[in-house]
């Protein structure tokens, strides 16, 4: 289990994109307008188990 997962720097600069993170969430291994392309980039970089997330236009405060 990864300790203290800090995505602040990792996700910087990907506003409104789908992002594929490395298995340990320490780096971006794919980024695109849709998750399919982000995943393809991740697989081309030999990432075994990428994790998808959507970087929103801005990271405001969420009340869900």
């Amino acid at each position, binding site marked *: *289990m*990864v*300790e*203290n*997962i*800090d*995505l*602040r720097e990792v*996700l*910087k600069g990907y506003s409104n994109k*789908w992002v594929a993170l490395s298995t340990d*969430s320490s780096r971006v291994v794919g980024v695109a307008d*849709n*998750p*399919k392309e982000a*995943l393809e980039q991740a697989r081309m970089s030999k990432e075994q*188990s*990428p*994790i*998808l*997330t*959507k*970087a*929103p*236009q*801005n*990271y*405001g*405060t*969420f*009340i*869900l």
Partner: protein
Amino acid sequence: MSPNLKYDYRKFPAEPSDAFPRRFSASRPVIPISIIRGELRVRYLAIIDSGADLCIFHAEIGELVGLAVESGKLLRFNGISGQQLAAYFHDIKIEVGGYEFDCCAGFSRDISNLPYGLLGQLGFFNLFNVLFDYNKGKIELKSKNNA
């Protein structure tokens, strides 16, 4: 299988505001899960959201596991400001920490401003006891299935 799973909170960027001028990050109980349909499987971040009635994921994630999203059963639901949103429900499997379970989950094109999917009461909290420790940044999940 009766897993006892431990996760760390994830720290996301946040914009300072008049109310919280020094708040540059937000720690949230977001965990990696897999959405599974047949042989297709996609890893994806989801927030453990006790305020959500159901599990709702981005429609694009459903399409990655081969769903024709709009062929599912429609549910109109309300966002926090009262706006009506739509989700289409499908039977899938979810994997959390190596533990797979069936879930009737909604897939929506109306949550595109969210960074992650929602793990809600039915489909997640009915299967796990969840312990949040915000100050320590820890989440503990214990399956209610003692089999």
